[in-house]
């Protein structure tokens, strides 16, 4: 069946009022759907300027490929360059070390998407191995933010560095969604790498609970924090993709089993104070009645810009108008999250990236040391890794190696693990729903409403997207971008960034976070925001 016939049938079925495909909810997007061919057209038009894709398919390839029928039929989807795709494209992680690497297997997420009918239109630009928040550290060069006003962009003497960053590390995916070059995109979120670029590009970026989506095929950066994330123009599209990819996977032992998923579902639907979160009959005037929203004080940091604060206030008012009860909560360990996050992420990075030695695959240094001497043989590693990794990756590997060394481990690694535990406990304390992981026996939830909140609301970033040239000399400032996003990563809880206002024409994002496993409620609230 050709793609155009299928597209036609899809349109007909919409007209005929077919709301759902078997086994999946269908959410109504507020945007007109983008077909594969439309996306490819947009790519050929806009990608040369925006540099969002590292590689993409041609219309001829799209027509030739046989995709299956399913709920995502004719959905053009972009996949970050650190997620393994078996066909057509390199899985380079935007690194020289894996410049021409093609994977012999495909990530479970990509398999699920293709089975559901979606077409992978290309691999997106990113910060090398996911390390960065501006999409600047890439062998492909920076991706650019589609929201830079066209007039400004064409000014005389404007260099690329004067353009705005799409954010990172999933900058290419966010830019691709924002510029209509795909209907949805996969990214990866270790400490905010999906949510931050989504906010800066004005799209929705969802980091589900750790373990909701299989990591098999996602090239590891910080394995205990890495989450596959979803970006789209609205929550409905995000949810359509999420329903397809959030399934158990025996190939990833840290992916939630079906019994854990069932336990979470039972726990979430048994809370007596929310009677109709997913029901069709929510009141039109107050669709989020019964939901209590927490505003965490500690996110009101010095670095927070006035427009970001304003959009936070506006978001809180909007939720209140939708029927939510908005309360102030305290998460006192938030300031410790950033240093703890970096110690853990770098330590895991130095471990996960140890395999790129050029021996079995990937780029190998041409310098041939004399291997008769063992000292020289290990020089081969040093040459290969020194040439293969960019400056930021090398910096994080070195710091991570130090953090884990026997001399420093007890001062950095161990305390960071403790802080992580404290932050998890802190979130458990503010949420009304108990954590399914710590709840060992079936909970007898009291009929009366417990003290905690259902979701938290706070900004995704301290401000709008900076220009690529900004803060050039301050690495620490780059890391501070992550201050709003890393606590949810450390706790493994779901968080979603939603477009919320502008500052000087550049988009801002607001973040909602919920208890471990409470992804459905989070998406439900996000849909209304």
């Amino acid at each position, binding site marked *: 069946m050709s793609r155009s016939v299928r597209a036609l049938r899809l349109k007909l079925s919409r007209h005929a009022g077919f709301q759902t495909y078997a086994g999946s909810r269908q959410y109504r997007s507020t945007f007109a759907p983008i077909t594969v061919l439309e996306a490819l057209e947009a790519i050929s038009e806009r990608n040369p300027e925006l540099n969002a894709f590292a590689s993409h398919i041609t219309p001829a390839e799209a027509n030739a490929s046989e995709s299956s029928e399913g709920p995502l039929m004719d959905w053009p989807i972009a996949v970050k360059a650190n997620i393994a795709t078996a066909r057509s494209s390199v899985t380079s992680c935007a690194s020289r070390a894996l410049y021409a690497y093609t994977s012999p297997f495909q990530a479970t997420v990509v398999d699920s998407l293709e089975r559901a009918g979606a077409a992978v239109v290309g691999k997106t630009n990113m910060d090398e191995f996911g390390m960065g928040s501006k999409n600047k550290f890439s062998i492909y060069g920076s991706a650019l933010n589609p929201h830079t006003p066209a007039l400004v962009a064409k000014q005389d003497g404007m260099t690329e560095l004067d353009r705005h960053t799409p954010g990172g590390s999933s900058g290419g995916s966010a830019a691709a969604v924002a510029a209509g070059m795909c209907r949805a995109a996969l990214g990866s979120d270790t400490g905010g790498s999906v949510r931050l670029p989504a906010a800066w590009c004005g799209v929705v970026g969802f980091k589900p609970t750790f373990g909701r989506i299989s990591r098999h095929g996602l090239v590891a950066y910080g394995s205990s924090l890495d989450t596959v994330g979803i970006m789209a123009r609205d929550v409905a599209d995000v949810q359509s993709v999420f329903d397809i990819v959030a399934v158990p996977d025996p190939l990833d032992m840290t992916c939630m089993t079906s019994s854990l998923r069932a336990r979470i579902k039972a726990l979430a639907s048994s809370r007596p104070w929310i009677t109709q979160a997913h029901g069709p009959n929510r009141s039109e005037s107050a669709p989020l009645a019964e939901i209590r929203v927490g505003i965490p004080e500690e996110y009101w940091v010095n670095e927070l810009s006035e427009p970001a604060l304003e959009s936070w206030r506006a978001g809180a008012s909007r939720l209140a108008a939708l029927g939510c009860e908005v309360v102030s909560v305290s998460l006192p360990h938030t300031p410790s999250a950033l240093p703890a996050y970096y110690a853990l992420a770098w330590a895991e990075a130095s*471990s996960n990236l140890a395999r790129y030695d050029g021996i079995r695959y990937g780029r190998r240094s041409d310098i041939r040391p004399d291997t008769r001497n063992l000292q020289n*043989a290990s020089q081969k590693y040093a040459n290969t890794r020194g040439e293969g990794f960019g400056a930021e990756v090398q910096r994080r590997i070195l710091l991570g190696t130090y953090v884990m060394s026997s001399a420093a481990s007890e001062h950095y690694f161990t305390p960071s693990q403790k802080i992580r535990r404290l932050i998890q406990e802190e979130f458990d304390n503010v949420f009304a729903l108990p954590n399914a992981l710590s709840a060992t026996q079936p909970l007898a939830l009291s009929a009366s409403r417990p003290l905690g909140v259902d979701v938290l609301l706070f900004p995704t970033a301290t401000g709008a997207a900076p220009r690529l040239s900004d803060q050039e000399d301050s690495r620490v400032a780059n890391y501070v971008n992550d201050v709003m996003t890393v606590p949810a990563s450390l706790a493994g809880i779901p968080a979603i960034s939603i477009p919320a206002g502008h500052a000087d024409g550049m988009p801002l994002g607001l973040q909602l976070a919920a208890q471990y496993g409470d992804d459905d409620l989070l998406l439900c609230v996000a849909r209304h925001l």
Partner: protein
Amino acid sequence: MRLLWSVRESARHCAGYKFTTNLLLHKRYYKPWGATIGLELHVQLAAAHKLFSAASAKWDDPPNTNVDFVDAGLPGSMPRLNPECVSLAARAILCLNGQVQPRSSFDRKHYFYSDQPLGYQITQQRHPIGRGGFIELGQADGLDYTKRVRIHQLQLEQDTAKSIHGVYPGYILTDLNRAGVALVEIVSEPDMETAPEAVHFVRKMQSLLRHTGVSSCNMEDGSLRCDVNVSVYRGSEDRLSGTRCELKNLNSLKTIRGAIEAEVSRQVELLSNGQRVKQETRGYDAHSGKTVLARSKEAAPDYRYMPEPDLPALHISEDWIKQIRSSLPELPEATLSRMTRQYGLLPEDVATMLGEPGCISFFEHAARGRDPKRVAAWITSEIFGQLSYRAQRLSDSTLTVQQFAGLLDALASNSITSTQAKTLLIEFMDGDKRAAEELIQAHGWKVMSDTRQLQTLVTQLLNEHPREAAEYKAGHKRRLNFFVAKIMAATKGQARPQD
């Protein structure tokens, strides 16, 4: 003062006279020096698949044929724990009288080497699957006293790839077949005091782990590897006070013994000369009979242990442990006491049979309704002789217990001679699939029970050899052997010498 003198004196003995070394190492001769010895054994599990992948664990297949994505460390690949390996590790700790831990977890141990595709080894540093337990050494094991060696812990971990040096000059070749094969590392407490104790400990470990099907435990092919920690102390000091050295790459029982003896001598000599023992890793040079420096403490790599984030903690239920325990075969210790009691066998014979996998059940089948001592004697001398001649395991031999039983019956009813029985055994082990009776018939063997025929033959022989007959009569009793041999030759072994 006096103590000092005796210390010096004994050290001089040790250093000066090579032959005293062995004596010195025997427990009784240790004073005033003592040695403290602990072992680390790496045992390859007899699992069909690797610890974290679905690839076959046959590491001796053609190079790089049994490699899954995770074994080659491909980007995006993830480890998946193989339950078979967990149950073999549980069997191992249970047969060592230890406890399976209800919760264990995995760690990464980092170092760069071409045999380490991930850049780290997945092991169990902090929370191993097994703790506690012991091995009891005694007479049946070849010690003339009893000794209990405690087990500290047992952990699951990955094997490395194989590095092949020297095939292509300037290149190190890598075979990933072994990368990720399941090992357990068994760490003993430093309870041993002599080299023979260490050797007997290893031997007993081999027999236990083979018996329970955990591992083939061969040092020759590397399915058992052994590192030894040795320190010495003066008689009056605490036995754990010495600085220990680790001896690595000891690949036979003989090497273990030689290396420990050499290392104890070296440390005693150093201390006697007022020098210090430095903590280091050493190897053993069998030619010079000395240990040699491999790596000083300063050069030891920092392994940067880290919890393995790709694997959740391993939870093992009480029910599952019970199930594993009930599936364990009778342990050698129990078999030994039962067999000596039930069949009246010598402990040495039972111990010998215990060393051969499958041999006990082979014996018990054959001994049903037969003289157990005779069965055991046949197994331990004739069958084991043939097995070692053929460098074969009983389980790989074509000999069936039915054939062996038929042979024993024919022998017991005097229908064949023991010479014929031995021929029969060789034919069975060469692959003849016929039953004993059938093969006897095919040979046309039957014992010459017609004594008159034998009488005629003897008379004939006496007449043919009058000189030898006269000598026998004159008291040369050994001349009888001459005639027996002649008769056996004439009858092609069908006569029974007793007649």
